[in-house]
C-alpha cells in the first residue's frame, strides 16, 4: 500500500495563483489547438462561391477605397516615390491582423458558453486558436501585399523610393507584438463581458475609433504636422508604432526606432499578462456568472 496522502496529480481548489498558465497542459492539448485552427479556417467560407478568395478581396477593396478617399480626395501625402495604394495596403493588412485577434478573442466566453459549460480543457486554447487562425489569414494577405509590391517595383515607375530595410528581420517580432496585444486586450474584454455586458457595445465602435488613432490611413509625421496638440494620442498608441514600423521595414518610410520597438514590446507584454491574469480568474467561475 502506498502513502494515501502523497503524490496527488493535481488539486482542484478555490485558491489560485495569480498567473496559472499551465504550459505543460497546453502542450498536451496542442492537437486541439491545431484542430480548432483547422475548424476556424475551413468552416468560415463553407458554401461560398469565392471561398478563400474572400481573404484577398476584403483588404484589396478597403485599400482601393482608402486610396481614393484619403489620398486622391483628401490629399494626404504618403511620401515621395511610394504608391498610396501600397501604403494603405500595408496599414490595412497589419491593422486587420490586430483587429481580428482582438474581436475574435473578445467573445471567447460568450460564444463558447455551451462548450465550456460541459467539458474542461485549458480555456486559453480558444483565444490562442483565434490568434493562430488569424496568423494564417495574415500570411495569405501578406502574400497579396508582396504581389502588389513586386508589381509596383518591377512594372511601374511609381515606386522608385520604395525598398525594404534591414530592420525587416524584426518583422516576426512585430507580428508577435500585434498578436499578443490583440490577444491580451481580447482576453480582458471577454473576461469582463461575462459579468458586465456593457463592454460588448464598446468593442464594436471602439475598434473603429481605434483605427483612426493608429496611423492606418495616414503617416504619423503628417498627423504631427497637422494636429500637434493631440498627436500624443496617436504617437503613444502601440498599434501606431507597429504599423509605422511595418511600413518602415517594407516600404522604407515611417517612424521607426529601437526604443519605440522596446516600448511597444513592453506595452504588449504587460497587456498580455494582465489579460492572462483576468482570464485565469474568470475561467474558473464564468459559467456561474454568464
Amino acid at each position, binding site marked *: 500500500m502506498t502513502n494515501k496522502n502523497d503524490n496527488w496529480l493535481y488539486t*482542484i481548489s478555490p485558491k489560485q495563483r495569480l498567473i496559472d498558465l499551465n504550459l505543460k497542459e497546453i502542450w498536451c492539448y496542442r492537437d486541439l489547438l491545431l484542430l480548432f485552427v483547422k475548424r476556424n479556417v475551413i468552416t468560415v467560407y463553407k458554401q461560398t462561391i469565392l471561398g478563400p478568395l474572400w481573404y484577398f478581396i476584403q483588404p484589396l477593396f478597403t485599400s482601393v477605397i482608402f486610396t481614393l478617399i484619403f489620398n486622391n480626395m483628401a490629399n494626404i501625402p504618403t511620401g515621395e516615390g511610394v504608391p498610396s495604394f501600397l501604403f494603405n495596403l500595408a496599414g490595412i493588412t497589419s491593422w486587420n491582423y490586430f483587429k481580428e485577434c482582438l474581436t475574435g478573442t473578445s467573445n471567447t466566453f460568450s460564444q463558447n458558453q455551451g*462548450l465550456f459549460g460541459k467539458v474542461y480543457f485549458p480555456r486559453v486554447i480558444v483565444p490562442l486558436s483565434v490568434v493562430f487562425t488569424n496568423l494564417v489569414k495574415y500570411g495569405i494577405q501578406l502574400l497579396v501585399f508582396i504581389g502588389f509590391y513586386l508589381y509596383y517595383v518591377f512594372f511601374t515607375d511609381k515606386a522608385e523610393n520604395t525598398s525594404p530595410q534591414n530592420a525587416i528581420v524584426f518583422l516576426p517580432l512585430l507580428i508577435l507584438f500585434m498578436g499578443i496585444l490583440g490577444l491580451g486586450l481580447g482576453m480582458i474584454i471577454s473576461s469582463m463581458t461575462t459579468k458586465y455586458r456593457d463592454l460588448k457595445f464598446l468593442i464594436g465602435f471602439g475598434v473603429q475609433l481605434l483605427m483612426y488613432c493608429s496611423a492606418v490611413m495616414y503617416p504619423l509625421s503628417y498627423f504631427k504636422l497637422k494636429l500637434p496638440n493631440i498627436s500624443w494620442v496617436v504617437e503613444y498608441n502601440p498599434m501606431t508604432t507597429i504599423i509605422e514600423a511595418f511600413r518602415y521595414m517594407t516600404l522604407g518610410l515611417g517612424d521607426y526606432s529601437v526604443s519605440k520597438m522596446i516600448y511597444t514590446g513592453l506595452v504588449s507584454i504587460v497587456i498580455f499578462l494582465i489579460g492572462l491574469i483576468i482570464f485565469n480568474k474568470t475561467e474558473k467561475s464564468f459559467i456561474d456568472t454568464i
Partner: protein
Amino acid sequence: MEKDIILKVENLSKQYRLGLVGTGTLGHDLNRWWSKVRGKEDPYLKVGESNDRSTKGTSEYVWALKDINFEVQQGEVLGIIGKNGAGKSTLLKILSKVTGPTTGEIKTKGRIASLLEVGTGFHPEMTGKENVFLNGAILGMTKKEIESKLTEIVEFSGCERYIDTPVKRYSSGMTVRLAFAVAAFLEPDILIIDEVLAVGDAEFQKKAIGKMKNISEGDGRTVLFVSHNMAAIQSLCSRVILLENGEILNPNGGEPSQVIENYLSNNNEKVDYKTHAANFKVNIIQKKIYDFKEPFKINLEIEVSDDVYESVYIDFAVVNQFDEFVLHYRMNIDKNKLIDLKKGGNPISFSIENPGLVLGEYSMIFYVYDKMGKVLFWVENSSRFQISNLSNVLIANSAIKSHIVPNVQLEYK
C-alpha cells in the same frame, strides 16, 4: 486488501447567488474585495442557506453543495444518486473542472474526463470524421489516439456511410450516436458519466450500457456514474452515495441495493393515512425495488389499540405513476378469507407469484372494511416501489410488456 485512493473530496462547497445577476453585482463585488483587502472572510459565504428549493429562504445565497467529503478507490464504480436538484450535476461539474468550488478541495491521482453531455463541440459544417477528431480532442484525446481508434468509433456509431458528410445532414439520432461513440472510446483514469444512457433507440441503449459495463468491469477503470436509472446504478456500481439538498447522506457510501432502497423510501413524499376510527396504525414492510421476474411480497402489520374487530376484509391495489390501477385484489370474493383483527399487532402478508408488472414506479392503496362493507380505514399513496430489470440490464426496458393475471397468496395467522 485496501486499494489506493485515487480521488479525494474534502469539505467541498459551492455557493450560488439567486435572482438576477446584474443589479447589485458590482456592489457585492466591491464589498467582497474590501473584505479581502482587510484580510477578512468573504461576507457572503456566511449568509448561504441550504438549497431547499420549495421553501422561500431569507438569503440571496444558497449552498448547492455543502461540506461534501468522500473518497474513491482505484478501479471502483461509484454511483451518485439523488433527487433533481440534490447537487449531483454541480458536483460533477466541479469534478470535471467546468466550474470551481467556493471552498474545499478535490485531490486526484488520475486524469479526469467527463461525459456530461454528448456531442459538445460538434460543428455542423464539418464532416463526421472531422468532428470525431475535433470532439475527441476536446475530450482530451490526442490526434494519434483518435487515429488508432477511428475505425472502432465509426463502427460503433453505425454511421459509416455518412462519415464524410457534414454533420448538419445527419439525423439527430445519428449525431448523438456518433458523439457517444467518440466519448465511449475515451481512456482517462477517472471517467465521469452523467445520464448519457438515455440516448438513442433501444438497440443503441443496449449497446451503450454494454460498453459502460466493459469500461468498468473489463478495463478496471474508475468511474463516477450519475443516473436516475436505478437498475443501471444497481447493476453497474459497486458503491453508491446519496445526495440530498447539497449534502451527502452517507459519506462512506453503501451497498447499491441498500442505498437505493433508502433513497426510494425517502422519496415517499406524502402518504395519506385516512382512517374513520383513529385507533388504527399500519406498518408496511416491503422491498423498494423488485426485479420484474421476482415474486412480489408485502408484509403488513395492522396495529389496533382499543378494540377487537372480527371478520374484516382487506383490499389492496397497485397504482402506477399515472394513478391508474394496474392490479386490484379484493378479499371479499372469497368469504372464507375473512380476518379477525386482534388488539395489538396483526401481521398479514400477501405474495404474488408473478405480478406481471411492467417496469416503472408504483404505489399502493389498502382498504380495510368490515363485513357490512363499512370502511374502517384506508391508506393511499403508500409504500412506493420500483419494478426494474435488475437481472439483466442488457434487455432493453421496452422489451418487457407481459401481463399475466396474478395469483395472490394470503398468509394470515
